[in-house]
């Protein structure tokens, strides 16, 4: 376990090296939030169907969604780069679990993003956009739990895409498709309550809605307490399913692996 903690620490340190990237990330998130809120305000002034929903809830939703996206960003090409350059052999030649190694690197980055990006960006946007506080203390804990599981769903989903590198050597298009699906179906861009029922019915059978929408709804107190346990369970089930698929792919990939270069 010591080794994995060390990996996480190294990954945290590595992020510190790229200071400009860090500031740009925070600014980018705030600008995106600003743009999106402006769009929703414009739509609202036209007196469209969203009149019934309080603008403040929407603003809070947007802020939370973008800040979560900011910290949930992962290095999509980490495996691809290792496979294509052949440096994956160096990782496989160590007595470590490759999947845990990968995960601890991401946890290090996540910790960095929460401390250095999420917290300052949250304070700034809470002040500028006057977001709603969490619905209740109880909901705050449910939100935390749900947000952690949302991260794990996204991680395991990404992991499956990363594993495709072993077959295609080039995962750009798959990553793009996956990103588009998440953007639309997870409620990251547009809250799911604006979607037509037939679409939300479909989304309910996919893992996407459980990444961003579920934790944010809990934060806003928009999910009935009776539904919360059910949703948390579904999140957990998705984690297990995606994890097992990823593990299966990894076992197949190992046999498939061709180390590039002499």
């Amino acid at each position, binding site marked *: 376990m010591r*080794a994995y903690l060390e990996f996480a620490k190294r990954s945290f340190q590595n992020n510190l090296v790229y200071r400009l990237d860090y500031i740009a990330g925070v600014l980018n998130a705030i600008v995106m939030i600003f743009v999106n809120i402006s769009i929703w305000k414009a739509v609202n002034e036209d007196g469209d169907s969203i009149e019934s929903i309080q603008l403040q809830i929407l603003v809070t939703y947007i802020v939370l969604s973008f800040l979560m996206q900011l910290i949930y960003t992962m290095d999509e090409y980490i495996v691809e780069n290792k496979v294509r350059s052949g440096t994956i052999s*160096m990782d*496989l030649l160590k007595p*470590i679990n490759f999947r845990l190694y990968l995960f601890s690197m991401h946890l290090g980055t996540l910790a960095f993003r929460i401390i250095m990006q999420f917290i300052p960006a949250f304070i700034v946007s809470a002040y500028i956009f006057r977001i709603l506080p969490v619905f209740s203390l109880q909901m705050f804990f449910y939100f935390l739990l749900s947000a952690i599981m949302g991260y794990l769903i996204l991680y395991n989903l990404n992991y499956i895409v990363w594993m495709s590198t072993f077959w295609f050597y080039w995962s750009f298009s798959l990553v793009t498709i996956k990103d588009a699906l998440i953007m639309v179906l997870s409620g990251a861009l547009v809250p799911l309550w604006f979607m037509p029922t037939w679409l939300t019915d479909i989304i309910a059978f996919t893992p996407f809605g459980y990444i961003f929408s579920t934790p944010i709804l809990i934060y806003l107190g928009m999910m009935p307490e009776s539904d919360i346990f059910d949703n948390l369970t579904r999140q957990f089930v998705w984690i297990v399913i995606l994890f097992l698929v990823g593990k299966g792919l990894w076992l197949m990939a190992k046999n498939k*692996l061709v180390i590039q270069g*002499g």
Partner: protein
Amino acid sequence: MALIEVRDLVKTYKVNVRNKGILGSLKSLLVPEYRYIQAVDSINFTIDRGETVGFIGPNGAGKSTTVKMLCGILTPTSGSVQIGGLSVAKERKKIAAKLGIVFGQRSQLWWDLPVIDTFELLKSIYRVPEQRYRQNLSRFSEMLGLEEFIRQPVRQLSLGQRMRAEIAASMLHDPEIIFFDEPTIGLDVIAKEKIREFLREVNREKGTTMLFTTHDMQDIEKTCERIIIIDHGQKIYDDSVEQMKRQYGRTRTLAVEFDTYYEQVYLPGAEFAGEKDNKKWFTFSKDEADVSSLIQWLSQRYKIVDVTVKEPEIEEVIREIYRGGVQTVESVS
């Protein structure tokens, strides 16, 4: 029991055949054609604890493929590799703990971090006890002269420094077996010699088994006792370096410097091999002629200034083996 056992090892690569031109590549996209390449074709050998073995073979002979399968990062198509009785394909993590790897062209050091940070990380990866780690570190620092650059980031090191750090990194956990893939590539003569000397000493001191793949025959000659030659995916030679020289290195070269230039010098039992100014070279087989009678024959007829006899370089011996298509020699082990 042997430390490393390789049985009927086979690796077949499936290679996508691409056709020429735009139409051709379109055709390849729609109807992929594959060709199978037998990179390693049924190789057998065993290696005992403490042996130093050189794997050599021309480019594309299958030696890297073999080594990758030996250390468990490539799954064989068929056959098995066992290290200390464990199957390499199944027990990657357990095997990895016993191995040390040095790739001349690939680094295991963290590029942005000081060398010492990588060492610390390796310490926790391999769970090296603190005391053992201190001992090894100070020993290697002394032998390889790491002190001067151990706190510098790896990207600032010269190639020679990096290789020394690389080698120390691969040995911190006292591996039972170390693989060296071109360990001295791109290094100057002094650095090469320093590294070879270090490896010999570690082998003597700790009884570490060492396997080399290299194109530098000096590496083999100076550090290996045994040599395995692979060509076209098959083992074509496997014996001690000494034995190889005895068996194949029968040709000697006689260099003679005469007092003046002679048009033609006839030497029975030897073949004329070249000339420059007053010097002439002759090759002869050790079995068919002996040096003293050759020199005697020459000195009776010509005035000789200088004579030297050269034993064959290991390169020449190996060239002879590559060319000769030697019959597979089964190792007796």
